[in-house]
């Protein structure tokens, strides 16, 4: 049975797990002083954009490629929904669960960082929306009328959708033990409801507008693509300085909520059967004593703890921003609040890697063997002759997982610190004042690192 974290108990580490948190904090502090002394001008504000050859843009962004990728996205999404509706109810034997919650949900952030926003051409709802829009324009001889998107809403619909998606996965369907506990049928129904909602919003506000603001997966994967070197500008593929595109991401309202939701949901998923277990059990018992049914009490308790995670992470970030505001020459608070939100993107990515790295390595073996050959999990098909395959859990030792987790968290937080320092130099001008303003961001980064390592150490114990 595939477990999310630490299949086997960790072997003896050379030093206690908590000393890794101390070591990581020292690395952050040293990085902070190095940045303060040596990083005197902003380097990420200008992305150093260089377009690739026109032929590469034509090949990868042209209509034929868009159609092929769109069809592939719609086909795979259709297979997942069909498997969810018609396949086995065992989550670990049904293609839908691993494909949607592991291959897509966890695979695309990594792909986006490395090769750019690849979800965009494969997005099934975007492909359907564009096809319908083109059909309408051909028949009616005009483009469909659109409502103006309320800009004050910004990316809030995506932030709420992100919380709802993870809530469905880890709260509504909490079952314990199985990698993803949600039932395939529930997943398929939820996917169909989400599809209807997304297509309706695309019809109202336009396909591209909704993908930029409200479509959960486009916004979420697009956020991670800002960390990488590849991007599209004015219809041309190009290369830019890594991390530079992140600087312009959080100017839209609600962006901070998206990245905080990402960190909070990952933290909650990692902590619910580890660090928060005692607290969750206490609140659950209290709710049951108060007369709630067992399922309602469990969902309510998990919802409360997930909301607390979101509030806690938001508070730590806002405390860091408040601290910056006290430094002479600081911009107004709203500008600081949105101006530093992008520094959390590498942290969100680091949390994803740290919490789900082992899950991806194990579950992708299932994805490309028995789930691909027997997508319904009914043991009646063997499409590619790999239905008898399995997961080799010895491929990763528990210690190797721990070192990857520690490495991801350290690299993610040092990257966040670097982005924050760069933005501070741009805002304050004087690098000494910029360094002063970043004292509090250093505290935020150390807090997130230690919190992350604590969650992982308890989950892996």
């Amino acid at each position, binding site marked *: 049975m595939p477990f999310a974290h630490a299949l086997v108990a960790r072997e003896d580490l050379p030093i206690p797990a908590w000393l890794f948190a101390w070591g990581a904090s020292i690395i952050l502090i040293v990085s902070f002083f190095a940045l303060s002394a040596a990083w005197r001008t902003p380097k990420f504000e200008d992305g150093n954009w260089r377009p690739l050859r026109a032929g590469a843009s034509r090949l990868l962004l042209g209509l034929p490629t868009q159609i092929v990728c769109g069809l592939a996205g719609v086909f795979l999404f259709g297979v997942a929904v069909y498997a969810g509706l018609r396949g086995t109810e065992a989550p670990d034997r049904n293609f839908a669960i691993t494909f949607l919650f592991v291959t897509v949900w966890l695979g695309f952030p990594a792909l986006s960082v490395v090769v750019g926003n690849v979800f965009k051409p494969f997005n099934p709802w975007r492909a359907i929306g564009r096809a319908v829009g083109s059909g309408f324009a051909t028949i009616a001889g005009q483009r469909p009328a659109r409502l103006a998107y309320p800009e004050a809403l910004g990316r809030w619909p995506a932030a709420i959708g992100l919380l709802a998606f993870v809530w469905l996965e880890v709260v509504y369907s909490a079952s314990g033990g199985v990698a993803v506990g949600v039932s395939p049928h529930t997943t398929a129904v939820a996917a169909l409801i989400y599809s209807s909602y997304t297509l309706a919003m695309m019809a109202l506000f336009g396909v591209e507008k909704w993908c930029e603001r409200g479509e959960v997966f486009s916004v979420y994967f697009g956020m991670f693509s800002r960390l990488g070197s590849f991007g599209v500008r004015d219809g041309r593929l190009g290369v830019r300085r890594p991390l530079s595109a992140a600087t312009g991401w959080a100017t839209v309202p609600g962006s901070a909520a998206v990245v905080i939701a990402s960190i909070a949901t990952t933290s909650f998923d990692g902590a619910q059967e580890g660090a928060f277990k005692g607290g969750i059990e206490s609140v659950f018992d209290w709710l049951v004593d108060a007369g709630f049914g067992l399922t309602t009490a469990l969902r309510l308790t998990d919802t409360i703890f997930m909301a607390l995670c979101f509030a806690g992470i938001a508070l730590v970030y806002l405390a860091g921003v408040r601290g910056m505001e006290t430094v002479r020459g600081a911009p107004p608070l709203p500008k600081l609040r949105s101006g530093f939100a992008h520094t959390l993107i590498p942290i969100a990515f680091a949390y994803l890697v740290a919490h789900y790295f082992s899950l991806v390595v194990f579950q992708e073996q299932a994805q490309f063997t028995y789930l691909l050959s027997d997508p319904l999990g009914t043991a009646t098909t063997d499409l590619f002759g790999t239905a008898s395959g399995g997961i080799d859990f010895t491929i990763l030792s528990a210690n190797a997982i721990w070192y990857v987790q520690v490495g991801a968290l350290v690299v993610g937080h040092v990257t966040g610190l670097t982005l924050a320092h760069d933005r501070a130099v741009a805002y304050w001008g004087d690098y000494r004042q910029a360094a002063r303003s970043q004292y509090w961001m250093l*505290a935020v980064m*150390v807090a997130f690192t230690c919190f992350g390592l604590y969650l992982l150490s308890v989950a892996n114990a």
Partner: protein
Amino acid sequence: MHDFLPLAHVGHWLWTLYVFPVLIVIFSIVKTTISEKRKAKRDSQRSTD
């Protein structure tokens, strides 16, 4: 009867070890900020004298 150390529940307090680095950083920041403000005040007083 009690000839062993009462360490059965010590694991419950392990989280404090993860809080130490955060507290040390916050303490250093507060201390540095206060001393910088005092220095700035002294300098401004000296310049008015």
